């Protein structure tokens, strides 16, 4: 079960990644790093950092309970025929 603190930390990490995407510091830098222009290597490594962050996110902050609560209930057996009408019901009642 993900704790609130873990979730907040994970979401804050995403915000930091968003800021790090805007790498003004390599804008005019033509040096090479790991064999590629550093502006390209940076964003390749950035994609790697996203992979690690998302792996941590789904491991530690995955809202399983919420999703299960949302997904279970009357079930999908009604699927193609009843779903839309079931969701309309409250309006008809109210």
């Amino acid at each position, binding site marked *: 079960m993900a704790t609130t603190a873990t979730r907040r930390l994970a979401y804050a990490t995403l915000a930091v990644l968003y800021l790090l995407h805007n790498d003004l510091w390599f804008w005019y*830098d033509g040096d090479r790093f790991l064999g590629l222009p550093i502006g390209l290597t940076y964003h390749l490594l950035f994609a790697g950092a996203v992979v690690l962050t998302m792996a941590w996110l789904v491991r530690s902050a995955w809202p399983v309970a919420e999703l299960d609560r949302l997904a279970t209930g009357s079930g999908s057996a009604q699927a193609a025929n009843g779903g*839309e009408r079931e969701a309309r019901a*409250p309006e008809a009642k109210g």
Partner: protein
Amino acid sequence: MTLTIILGYLLAVLLIGAWSSRRLAATGEDFFVAGRTIGPFVLLMTLFGTHMTSFALLGASAESYRVGIGVFSLMASSSALMVPIVFFFVGTRVWAVGSRLGLLTQVQFVRARWGSDGVGLLLFVVLVVLLAPYLLIGVMGGGITLQQITDGAAPPWLGSLLICGVVIGYVTSGGLRGTAWVNTFQTGMFMVLGAVTAILIVTKLGGVGAALDRVAASRPDLLIRGDAIDPLRLLSYTLIPLSVGTFPHIFSHWLSARQAATFKAPIVLYPVCIAVVWIPSVLLGVFGNIDFPGLEGPASNSVLIRMIALYTPDLLAGLLGAGVFAAIMSSLDSQSLSLGTMFTQDIVRHYRWGGELSESRQILLGRLFVVGVVAAVFLVSLVAERSIFALSVWSFTGFASLLPVVIAALYWRRSTATGAAAAIVTVIVLWIWFFVRGVGQPDYSVGGTGVMPVAVIFAGSVAALAIGSLLSKPPGTERVARFIP
């Protein structure tokens, strides 16, 4: 040789589609969302293949030829961050709510959330209008690619016809399951072929380091972002990938997931897929300046095909053609099926044209609409101008700006039908306003500031949603509880 390879590939695609149709159960849910049984690997591959168009192979290399390595940060790594975030926060919740309520389309989703027929119909029109040029671009791109790689021997209509015919074949036979299985194969194809193309060409150029040295000697500006990309453009461009949250074809694939955990693979591995496809495309585009310097306008769009013709003509041209067809069809199939689903569910079934629809009649109508949509797109492709390609970023802009409506439906209890309608109308008005001023200008920004129109339209959408919702009567708690526990 080239045509033989492409025809062989298309035959393989049709066979996979036919094989998948054996598992088709005679229900609308099975045809339109694969009975919600798709597993993690297929979901990852089909989501990625559906999202990536031929632009990832041809357009990315052309743009990199012109702008340089900055294209990767602008279009690829921004998607690597934003798309998994959308899957995590939006996709999983859409799946959960959709599974429980038996929803098949976004319009059903909106109607169920706010109980408004009008908002649903408004959204239907906007989605169809935004998706239409997207389909057209794919069909035309296939025709133009086949013409170029056969050195003009195959007319453009032939490539378009082949693509349309094959897509109709496997989508109508296998529904979303067939589409997902074929997409898995096709996504693997264009990922592998893109990498193979890059390795072969770069090897002939003497390796990455030697090729970069040659580019640095003549065009060092291509190896930095420099003045080619404005920092505000990079910042505002991160909103464009949010369009993945409102594409009807992505929505359908979300609903096909077997369980919540199925989303883990797409959420974690999406950036890997992006890197595999985009790094070769960007590098090859930049390296195109070594042998083909000074290409202007439409000529620069064919830089990858020119490089293949120069370095590895026969076999690779055929394989690249198959790869481009794979990229195009893996989007076109899901798009046409999602439109077929929308016409069947949101119009015919919702308004009960012809009375209550049986399961078999839903499938029949779905198939007929897919055929109708693809045939109509093919006919329009015969007369449409190539300038239609400039519409893709505008299409993405419109979809991205609708995301606040979806987020509000999933997370904001106080949101109302009035707010949703206000947001959609605001998107329409602002989109038209910017489109009239910016269409045909690839580097258009708001007032020349570098800020892309999507930032303003998105902000307008959020503001209209908030104001419209707060000024209208709060929704009933029972209805809200179905979406937000």
